[in-house]
């Protein structure tokens, strides 16, 4: 079967690429464009490590076809703090508040679930700017983590919510 020529808008940049219709967005991001911040943990939509935003919606990039992503704004983890990714001096860059909170609260261990966790958190905080603990846990129910036991991730999201949309 022939490849389709499509244009994907990823983190603000247009990428013209040829893809087979069965190619997933995750394969295109990782294997073709080498945007490897988005991970692949299971390939069946169960673990959330591949989460990206399609316009304002969080999706599992392993279950999303590349061709159906055309015409949408795709945001990956690399798009949250583009300066930091491009800048060699990571220590002095401003990150997204969610990223800062994940670091400060110890919400990162092996880091493999982290990009997906942060993208799901971003989606959650856009839907629910001041979530309570139950809402945070529900918002993370599609993202698995084997290292942290989730508590520090929940704390980090509450901390980020307070920074982004102060309640006091």
């Amino acid at each position: 079967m022939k490849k389709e020529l499509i244009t994907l808008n990823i983190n603000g940049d247009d990428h013209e690429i040829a893809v087979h219709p069965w190619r997933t967005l995750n394969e295109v991001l990782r294997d073709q464009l080498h945007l490897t911040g988005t991970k692949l943990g299971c390939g069946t939509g169960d673990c959330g490590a591949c989460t990206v935003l399609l316009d304002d919606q969080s999706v599992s990039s392993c279950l999303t076809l590349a061709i159906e992503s055309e015409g949408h704004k795709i945001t990956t983890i690399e798009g949250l703090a583009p300066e930091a990714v491009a800048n060699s001096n990571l220590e002095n860059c401003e990150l997204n508040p969610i990223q800062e909170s994940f670091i400060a609260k110890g919400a990162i261990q092996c880091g493999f679930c982290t990009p997906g966790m942060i993208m799901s958190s971003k989606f959650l905080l856009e839907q629910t700017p001041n979530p309570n603990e139950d809402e945070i846990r529900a918002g993370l129910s599609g993202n698995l983590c084997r290292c942290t036991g989730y508590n520090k991730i929940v704390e980090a999201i509450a901390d980020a919510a307070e920074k982004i949309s102060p309640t006091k």
Partner: protein
Amino acid sequence: MSTDQNFSVVGKSLPRSDGRIKAVGAAQYADDIFLPGMLYGKLLRSPVAHALIKSIDTSAAEALPGVKCVITGQDIPKVKYGNWRLVPESQDEYALAIDKVRFIGDEVAAVAAIDKDSAEEAIRLIKVEYEELPGAYSVEDSLADNAPVIHDEYKQDIPNISLDRKIEYGDLDKAFAEADLILDDVFTVHATSHAYMEPCSCISEYDHDGRLTIWTSTQAPYFVQCLLASTLEMRENDIRVIKPFVGGGFGGKMEMRPWEFCSAFIARKLGRPVKFTLTREEELATGRRRHPMRIHSKVGFSKEGMLLAKEFNVHLDGGAYNSMGPTACFLCGNFGAMLYNYPSYRYYGAHVYTNKPPAGAMRGFGAPQALFVAETQMNMAAEKLGLDPIDIRYMNAMETGNEIPGVATISSCGFKESLIKVAEMTNWREKRKNLKPGQGLGLGCYSFISGGVFNWFNTRYNFTSAEVRAFDDGTVHLMTMASDIGQGCDTVLRQILAEELGLKVSDIRLTAADTAVTPQADLGTWGSRVTLMAGNAVRKAAQEIKEELFKMVSLKFDLNVIHDLRCGNGNIYPANRPDRAVSFGEAVRMAQRAKRGEPVIGYGSYTPRNKGLVTPAFSFGAQVAECEVDKETGAIEVKFMTTAHDCGTPINPMSVEGQLEGSVHMGLGYALSEQFIMKEGKTLTTTFLDYKIPCAEDMPPGISVHVDTYEPDGPFGAKEAGEGLVSPTAPAIADAVYAATGYRCMDLPLTPQKVLTGMKKI
């Protein structure tokens, strides 16, 4: 206890040094590496559990456009491998099966192609003719009369028992004869998956200098280097193993594995880089797992509750190969009698081959199984003797200075304090009296090791080592083969080094886990060994630097006693005259000048010697689970977890908390939700939809407190923190369920079905 030191970096909850790079998505894991001209590899696995390979036809696969290489067991050196190099006959695996397959998933062939689709298609085109043999799918099957022999090339005293271990001390028969209470029970515990988030991946490249470089998701670069050398018939020094960022391991990435071999073998053959990345289905269907065990435990008490005797018979269901089973068999015997004073003890452990995916090392490594049994029997004994479960433990508990016969002397122990703490925090005695129907409170405890002493890998090097280079700009470069797989040793080792040299963490550059660059050797990340062992090596390297710099600074100050000097705030200064400080960088400059330009380099190593048989240091702790059971459905809700633990000095308290919370997660999954459903050797639970690790909503709230001890053999008093706490959760929950329902679980996992069935029997 001598926590007399005022630490400036140790004991601080600093954010991890790799936090930022991970948070922005720039951390490269093995599968994130792309090399020019790279090929994609794929493995063909056996669809049958036990069979002879009659023929393999690879011609159609080789003819497929884009396919560059197809290899089978016939193409590779006939060299077996395994981690237990000390006992060569225990090395029972070929990278690709030769003549016989022993489990569903056994690797049979490998291909490399220009893209993933071609590699997958090629795998489907390989034709293998099998002659199926009867299979053995449980310990009982394997030990039955006329059971199929899974490895017939070795002489085994009892067919299918690959090795066994015995421990005996005290007069067991006499002690049982004098016992007022004897419990004699059989328990079964199940297999679980590491379920690390990053599936295994590696990429190999062969260069024109004749050296092979492999980036691989591993916990033990040195093991991979040595075993690739032997299986590829190359020299160790011609193999460079680099550990990139690793997405968790939990014991599942501490062996050389077939994809590492195949990637290296094909890269060498073709002169092109080759990447292999496993799918989650491969991981769950064929990957290593925690040992299922059948445990027969007989334990005797006096009527006052004192432990008198224990007989512990364990059959480990090892699957098709030894993997790390020999160590599990060894350690399970130790964990069976580690937590309390057992005046007499007899252990027999047997590692049994079955036609299933091999079990390997997994967090806790023999302890979750042994302690589920030991702790459940402590709870049963307390009830039968009319004692409080806290009290029966307290009277038998290990203490600092106690000896485990033939094993070790315990150099620090906060067990009794942990028991007191959890009882206070939960209001244990009152709360137990006032439980409503369906509510339960249960107790479980643990002890764990801080790295191993026994040299089963047969390394010719120190167990771990570190090199520190000091620069006249006031910075240092730490080089260590210690492997951060997510647990945070890159951060913790920097903290230890900064503390010793009086520097800031930001003054330290770290190069880790690259066998061509970092000093030989380190055995890897397992057995909770890194903080204590690598930490001690880093401290020793730093002390060499200090000694050299102090000599220089002494000259300047006319001080002739070296220990009058201190490191702190980036300076070296006389203890009584901090105002007369010389900066660290200036001291390095002086030392370098005195040596006509030679750099200032410190080397440190650590090998546990004269530390008994098992470990240099033991951690301890106690945990209480509060549960509610729905008697209509059998559903168990864990309402709260309370933990008190003793890990010596926490080098980074936030990191320790993260380890403890992660342990509760894994312990909860072990107790309640995680299991492999198997049918005749086939794993049916091959997605995270079926293999249920707890998600954020499943985690109970909880609290944990640290009991203050100082481990004399650990760096700044530190010992194990990341592994032991996986053990108490299952027995604590099972005991709470017993209190709530009257059903005593002796067969993990604790599913609602078992609770309902168990309640009906009462």
